[in-house]
């Protein structure tokens, strides 16, 4: 802060404003374009819905569908083409498209290349029945797509009673709402004001006051810009809504007075439907826009905009801090000064960023939404749930379950039981693996011990043989009746044990299996690391009168530390997430008591299809491990250099 010179403060301010206001303007522009587009789309839907209404009536009355189709396309101002598909008969029932007209009289049998139309109708049918069955609006019952820059195609289901039997495809010319922008773009006055304020900075003393003043200017400018932006958005939305209302009245009046159209059908509100064909009720039959309702409906969007603005402001402040305190310059200098160091790190870092950190951030992002199998194709921003997933994981506190008869039992599916078990599993495994591996490495490092190469090669076998089969062999060894372990117990005169009936015996089985699988790794690490200890150190220790134990404690262990500590940390991490052994050997038996967090997460993702929840689970696992890692790192000072 000491060096918050005028130049840097100004540079920081400009950076912050450019980032904050620039990006926010981009978002605003995109939001307004989206609103304009959705109003345009809504106009197309209204037209299509009106046409579908009329056509359904004509068909029910046994009228001439083709004639009405042609008439509608002519009568409605924006309707360009119309096509009616009768899916139950695989027929093209009516059409105004030239190609269809050339092909002959209607109805026509659908050709192979027209399969898409048939599938559309079937899709709408399935969507409708799904929504009815689930009592929810989950699947789109209105299909919309742009067929040209200014042409929209709307596909609506055609009902027979409650059954979807076909579809109406309407191609409309886009009806754009009036341009709601007007006046100066919001950012110009804000930026001008902010720049004026800059002059005042010179009057302030350097250091904190100037830095704080810059911060205040940034914050105020961003706030003003955001609230101006929000107003514009509301305005755009209202203008759009008005355009839809006007358009609905246009359509209605175009149809009114036609002899073949029943005036009772012309209730414009019925055409004002969303993508689930649910009435939007944003205006009444007279075309009067319900401003309150529109604004209420807009609350969610505005909330989202506010969140976005908040995040951007934070970002801007961060950049302000970065530039204004001279940190940015130092970053630049550091990059140049340590370029050879960065050069060494960059290749690995690129790989890590692309293939490790990117998927990681994707996972973290996912955890703040509610993405499941049922909504994978919905845009993410519709599914924002904030911390809900985390809250529901952490709030799962019912470790003890009381049955109806009042008896109590442990709820093995509970998050905290699983967490506790995972920790137990990790600690005991890493302890066994490390102790055994280290002991063996020390023994195999004894000078003049014979057959060392033989022992070494045999002892890495568990690592070398694919663990899928060895894990299953272990599972077989623990079989109650036909497993060798119970046979050995019986040879010794004992009773056979049902290994997977109680959580602790089941735990023992997976522990044995994983211990067997994991010690060779530690052994190899320790063997490699032992080579970095010069013999002189032992001699020195011996001279100092250290016994074997002391030599180990004060010479071997400290020297092994640099290699062993990361190996232990990573072992903990890997064991914590050791999916295979649990999945193959205990399979969570009994009753999920030996599940660990990662197998739970796997089940949530691939059996319950709750992708975001599983992502949140993964993040929780990550956080637990990170806390552990930081703690371990503090205790052992693993990252501190020599």
């Amino acid at each position: 802060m000491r060096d918050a010179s005028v130049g840097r403060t100004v540079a920081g301010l400009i950076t912050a404003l450019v980032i904050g206001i620039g990006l926010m303007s981009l978002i605003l522009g995109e939001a307004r374009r989206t609103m304009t587009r959705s109003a345009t789309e809504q106009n197309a839907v209204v037209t299509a819905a009106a046409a579908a209404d009329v056509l359904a009536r004509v068909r029910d009355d046994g009228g001439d569908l083709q004639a009405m189709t042609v008439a509608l396309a002519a009568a409605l101002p924006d309707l360009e083409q119309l096509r009616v598909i009768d899916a139950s008969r695989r027929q093209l029932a009516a059409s105004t498209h030239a190609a269809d007209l050339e092909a002959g009289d209607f109805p026509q049998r659908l050709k192979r290349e027209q399969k898409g139309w048939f599938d559309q109708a079937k899709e709408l049918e399935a969507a409708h029945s799904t929504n009815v069955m689930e009592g929810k609006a989950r699947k789109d019952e209105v299909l919309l797509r742009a067929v040209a820059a200014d042409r929209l195609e709307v596909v609506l289901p055609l009902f027979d009673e409650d059954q979807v039997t076909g579809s109406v495809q309407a191609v409309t010319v886009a009806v754009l709402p009036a341009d709601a922008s007007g006046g100066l773009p919001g950012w110009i006055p804000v930026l001008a004001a902010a720049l004026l304020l800059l002059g005042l900075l010179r009057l302030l003393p350097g250091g904190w006051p100037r830095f704080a003043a810059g911060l205040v200017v940034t914050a105020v400018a961003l706030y003003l810009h955001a609230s101006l932006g929000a107003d514009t958005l509301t305005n755009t939305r209202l203008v759009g809504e008005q355009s839809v209302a006007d358009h609905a009245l246009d359509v209605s009046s175009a149809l009114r007075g036609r002899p073949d159209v029943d005036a009772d059908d012309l209730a414009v509100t019925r055409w004002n439907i969303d993508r689930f064909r649910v009435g939007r009720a944003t205006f009444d039959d007279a075309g009067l826009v319900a401003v309150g309702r529109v604004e209420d409906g807009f609350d969610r969007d505005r909330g989202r905009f506010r969140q976005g603005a908040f995040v951007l402001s934070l970002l801007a402040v961060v950049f302000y801090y970065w530039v204004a305190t001279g940190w940015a310059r130092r970053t630049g200098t550091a990059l140049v000064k340590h370029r050879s160091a960065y050069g060494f790190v960059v290749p690995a870092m690129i790989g890590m960023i692309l293939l490790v950190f990117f998927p990681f951030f994707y996972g973290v992002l996912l955890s703040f939404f509610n993405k499941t199998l049922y909504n994978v194709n919905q845009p993410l921003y519709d599914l924002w749930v904030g911390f809900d997933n985390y809250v529901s994981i952490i709030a799962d506190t019912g470790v003890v379950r009381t049955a109806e008869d009042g008896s109590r039992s442990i709820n093995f599916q509970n998050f905290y039981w699983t967490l506790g078990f995972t920790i137990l599993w990790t600690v005991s495994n890493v302890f066994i693996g490390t102790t055994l591996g280290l002991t063996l490495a020390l023994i195999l490092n004894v000078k003049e011990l014979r057959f060392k190469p033989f022992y070494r090669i045999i002892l890495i076998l568990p690592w070398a043989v694919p663990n899928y089969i060895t894990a299953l062999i272990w599972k077989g060894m623990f079989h109650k009746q036909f497993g060798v372990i119970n046979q050995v117990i019986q040879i010794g005169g004992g009773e056979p044990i049902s290994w997977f009936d109680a959580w602790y015996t089941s735990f023992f089985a997976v522990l044995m299996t994983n211990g067997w699988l994991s010690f060779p790794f530690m052994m190899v690490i320790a063997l490699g690391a032992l080579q970095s200890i010069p013999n002189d150190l032992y001699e020195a220790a011996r001279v100092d009168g250290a016994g074997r134990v002391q030599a180990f404690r004060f010479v071997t262990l400290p020297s092994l530390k640099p290699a062993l500590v990361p190996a232990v940390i990573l072992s903990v991490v890997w064991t914590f997430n050791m999916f295979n052994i649990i999945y193959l050997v205990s399979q969570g038996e009994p009753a999920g008591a030996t599940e660990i967090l990662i197998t739970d997460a796997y089940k949530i993702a691939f059996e319950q299809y709750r992708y975001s929840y599983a992502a949140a689970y993964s993040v929780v696992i990550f956080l637990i491990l990170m806390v552990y890692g930081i703690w371990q790192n503090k205790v052992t000072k693993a990252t501190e250099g020599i």
Partner: protein
Amino acid sequence: MTKPVFWLATLAVAVVLVPTVAMAEIELVVWHAYRGKEKAAFESVVEVFNQDHVDDVRVKTLAVPYDAYADKITAAVPRGKGPDVFIFAQDRLGGWVEAGRTMEPIDFYLYEEITDDFIPSTLEAMQYQGNTYGLPMNFKVVTMIYNTDMVASPPQTSTELIEVAKLHTNEAGGKFGLAYSYSDFYYHSALMNAFGGGVFQGSRDPVLNSFENVQSLELMMQWFDVDKVMPAEPSSSLITMLFNQGDAAIVFSGPWFLSEISESIPYALATLPTVDEAGGAPMQPWMTVEGAYIAAPSQNKDHAFDFVLYLTGPAAGKTMALEGRQTPANLRVYDDPEVAGDVQLSAFRAQVEHAVPMPNFAEMTMVWSPATTAMNSIVRKASSPQAALDQAQKDVEERVKSLRK
């Protein structure tokens, strides 16, 4: 450039160019998870198709190990990197339809002339929310397999079954009259369906703890715990071993079991018995139907459908049945005397009359874990069937709710 090199280069260019000139044809990629006999049969079937379509279509196959097959489809197909046609059991169908951009609906191609050829329940397995997404190739269903040295004529009813089983049970010596993965919910479905139970009703609401389901489990426990005719911890490896050592008289299992039976064991197949405790209703196992589907992003859907039609048709079905030991879903295959005369195929064909397609919607996947937990705790006698199923019901309800949120 010296002469030999020049000629070699020309030759190489020619070798590279000639096939491309002749290849004005469409390539269809097909994924499957076959191995061994099935794979060989499948490849020969594809080869026949390729011979017949030398001028227009060429089908290329890719075998994918079953364990990660579904994951591969989930990752690749929606991104347009997958096959044109893939073969899979119906259990993932609903999930993939919901995920979108994976399954191509084929109702448009289907006429009664086509659909009438298939065993109706197998075709039903290919349908989701009123749309058909594939044609059934074959079905796999659990039936009764018995050691003919030990059992002369197959039991017709559950009472007979237990009587016969008791004769061949010697627990201390590791001999059992009846062996099947009874604690596996999939295998248990036969009993459950016999009682008229099930997992979902109507609009896919879970009904795990229905009275019928409880009854079926009580009977299962009767067999295991009171009659003691079945081994503990019945993994499929164990059952295979017992049967192959002549230590199991009767096994309930599917076609996959047959090729694991050792040559020294004489065996025969029979339809699963009726259940006296369920008023004489037959055991109705869940049926797995393997279908051929068109991938939604495929660029050659028409050709893909022609191939699917061929694959599920009588000619291919016959090869797949006789050489690949599959039980075809196409009824016309059974018109062939060779297929009709095959005792194994006809046994499964007979069983399919008393079989229920396993539900193909995504919610079904959520059932397995809680159901397995319930089954295990019942078998372990840690809780009563009712209590275990109540718990499972609660868990499944919760999961279904959170998915549909």
